[in-house]
């Protein structure tokens, strides 16, 4: 068990180091100058613009050689400092992320959990019922094959623009001030539904297909036939099949996590939903090194931590993993 953990942790630390280094380097390879972009929106005297440019290049430390910037970046990071955003100047990146993160959680957690539960359940349903299978499978394939942003646009167009049931941008209406009142919660959910649905439905397809295939495989397995020969009820067979079919689905969750997060980012851009994805988009469009770094760091951390939790969980739900590392002691 200890060996399993140390190995996993080591791998995670290495991954983190390389991911963060790439995260630091990529924005700096983009053509352009973030300070110039910041100042470009302001019409003033040309000599003033020039003066301010040199002032802020220094203030952001962008005049230093790259290796020095890289070292001071790690130094600041280890002290928990993500720097100051250029685009949202002078707001610290950490604060921007802090105010954006709840919106991501509000979208990601329910959509992952619900789609996983509902998807597995629908998949199991399809797996044991042929008639249902022939109706449901095309739907699942359609859902899982849709790219997140495309599906988001389709939903926005159909439910938002054509039927005018839901607003297509923002997290709540302009005229309302966030509070614990029913009016606000209703308004918030109203804005939340479309981005949630697009994440939920696309993921649903994948889980359902995986579950359906596993169930069919498990029902045909030897132990299932044996149980059947013993005369046990269909319920009991299905119960065992279901538990065995779950395992790959948990692994799948770990593998899919990165994709889902990427999906959430694009969905937020489509719906102008003020989470990390939207902020990141603004950062990229405006070449805000520090904001891009911070957002990616957040994503890296989240994906790594979630993967780690799933790794741990796996030990619990699949005794074979534990067994292979402990040698059955």
């Amino acid at each position, binding site marked *: 068990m200890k060996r399993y953990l140390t190995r996993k942790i080591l791998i995670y630390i290495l991954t983190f180091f390389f991911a963060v280094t790439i995260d630091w380097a990529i924005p700096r390879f*983009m*053509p*352009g100058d973030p300070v*110039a972009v910041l*100042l*470009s*929106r*302001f*019409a*003033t*005297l*040309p*000599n*003033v*613009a*020039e*003066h*301010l440019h040199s*002032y*802020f290049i220094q*203030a952001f430390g962008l005049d230093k050689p790259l290796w020095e910037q890289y070292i001071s970046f790690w130094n600041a990071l280890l002290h928990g400092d993500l720097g*100051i955003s250029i*685009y*949202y*100047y*002078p707001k610290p990146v950490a604060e921007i992320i802090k*105010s*954006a993160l*709840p*919106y991501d*959680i*509000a979208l990601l957690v*329910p959509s992952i959990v*619900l789609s996983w*539960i509902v998807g597995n*359940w629908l998949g199991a*349903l399809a797996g044991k019922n042929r008639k249902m299978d022939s109706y449901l499978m095309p739907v699942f394939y359609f859902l899982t094959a849709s790219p997140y942003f495309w599906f988001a646009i389709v939903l926005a167009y159909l439910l938002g623009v054509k039927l005018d049931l*839901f607003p297509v*941008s*923002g*997290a709540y*209406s*302009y*005229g*309302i*001030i*966030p*509070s*614990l*009142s029913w*009016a606000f919660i*209703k*308004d*918030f*959910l*109203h*804005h939340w539904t479309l981005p949630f649905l697009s994440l939920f439905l696309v993921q649903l397809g994948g889980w359902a297909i995986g579950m359906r295939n596993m169930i069919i495989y498990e029902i045909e397995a030897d132990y299932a036939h044996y149980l059947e020969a013993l005369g046990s009820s269909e319920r009991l067979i299905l119960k065992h099949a279901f538990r065995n079919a779950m395992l790959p689905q948990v692994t799948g969750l770990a593998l899919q996590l990165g994709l889902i997060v990427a999906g959430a980012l694009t969905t937020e851009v489509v719906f*102008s939903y*003020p989470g990390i994805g939207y902020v990141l988009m603004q950062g990229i*469009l405006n070449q805000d090194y520090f904001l891009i770094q911070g957002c990616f760091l957040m994503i890296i951390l989240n994906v790594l931590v979630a993967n780690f939790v799933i790794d741990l969980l796996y030990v619990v739900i699949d005794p074979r993993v534990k067994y292979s590392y402990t040698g059955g002691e």
Partner: protein
Amino acid sequence: MNRGVGVVSMKKLLGAIIALVVFANVLSSGYVRAEELPRDETLYVGGGLWSQPNNFNPLTPWAAVTGTIGLLYETMFIYDPLNDKLEPWLAESGQWVSDNTYEVKLREGLKWQDGKPLTADDVKFTFDIAKENGGVGWAPIWDWLSEVKVVDDRTVQFVFSQPHYEEWTYWLYNVPIVPKHIWESIEDPISYANTENPVGSGMYKLYKTDEMRAIWIRNDDWWGTKVFGKPAPKYIVYVIVYSNNVALSMLVKGDLDWSNFFIPGVPDVKSTYNIVTWYDDKPYHLPANTAFLFLNTQKEPLNNPDFRRALAYAINPEEIAARAQQNQVLPADPTGLLPVPVFEKIKAKDLEEKYGWKYDPEKAIQILDSLGFKDVNGDGYREFPDGSPMKFEIIVPYGWTDWMEMIRIISEQLAAVGIRAEPKFPDYSKYWEDLTKGTFDMAINNFGSQVYATPWQWFNWVLYPDVTSVGEPSYSGNWGRYKNDRVTELLELINTEKDENKKLQYYRELQEIMLKEVPAIPIVYNGAWFEASPAHWTNWPTEKNPYAYPISWNNYWQMGGLKVLLGIKPVKSSTTSQTTTTSSSEGGGICGPAVLVGLAVVPLLLRKRKR
């Protein structure tokens, strides 16, 4: 697993997750008070806010939220472009008392929002802080300002080492006066976001902000009430709107009162929805700035004035105005000077007749032929005189749809005279890099060619003399890197000259150079986009009631936006304020919860049926 337990736990889980998510969000936004702003007392404005409002620092105007200067902090003067008048605001009067000393007399009874008096000391402090901090927006003034003297509580003198009369005019209505008693104790005034109860002297106070809006509340104790009256809206909600379509639909529904967005399609729907614009017919809007086609004069053959002139003959601004902007803009004259009083008084119409051009492709073909640019290989496009291929790129930022259409049309028009110029749409930051480093061929830009209190500033941007070499960044203006020693001299002369007649002569000479040399081709006068909804507010400024330049962008409040606030009136009296903004979405408001309930219930129903 017992099935019954499964159903219950799923139900519980769903409920818990939903509750948790909502709760977490509400808590994280940090508000606990239930509040909806009374619609009849609230003004919804948009068009000048593009990122979440989190900087109200008047010392850094380029990063400050629109309204920071104007609503919150005030300038000594304001400028009215409709009448070309510099009007006293915090100041009562101001004049040159000698060749190098400008004296400002402040109004009586000025006070900050915290009740303390606003005095000459604050004015001095506002300038002195720029001497110590290079990051302050007006720091370069100190290259030619030598001292700010407090004469008495209400009188302050600016002593210049080298008076720049024209430049000074600009700063008079652009430097926001800040309270000394607050800012002197702020350690790093440049990176201070100033979001916690900022104290200004203006007619509005900052009320609340979040990711997509800034909310202002009227300062009922404003010093200016006695002089100017009281602005009608109790609240101003300045919103970020992410797309033109959303802005239009909000305007139509009456959810947005004052829009400064460019909205394609306004001419088509204007009368159906009673949308107010400055002119009832085309061009609908007042002009705001000149959109130029900058030509890289450091590149062959764009370094040849005759070649540039041929391009000018080949381009038809009228077609561009009609097709790219539905005639919401006016086509530009060859000088590019905007049709507003400040420019009209210096415009040399006779020179324009003599040296100018108008759309004439035949003439363009004739010039190009005579210069030796001919189509040798028969592909329909001209080559260099030595036979090598000639190809240009025109750039505008991706997503700026009206500009994208503009350069597509320009490309067509140039193709008609045999010049290959491809439209390209790089991302904004790449576009900006090409522009500042001089690595483009042709580009549309208008960032500094706006209406100013002095034409000098417009010329100084278009022809900015401090040209860097290609590859080295230049920061603003004269993107084509046009060099001319006489222009440098003239700009300097105008800036340091007091005699108006001499200035007029210099301005004529500048125009002559621009017309003869064609450093850049003026295309259209971009509009001061203004669309207002009469649903909740009335008495908007229009051509027939021209009391203000109706723009709320950053740095435009003191050019008219403030007067709009003083001029508009509520449609309903403010006592009947039950209507709330959410009412318009009441029908759909149920849908969110309904879907959730549906999601939770459908699987349960399916399960039951199976039993």
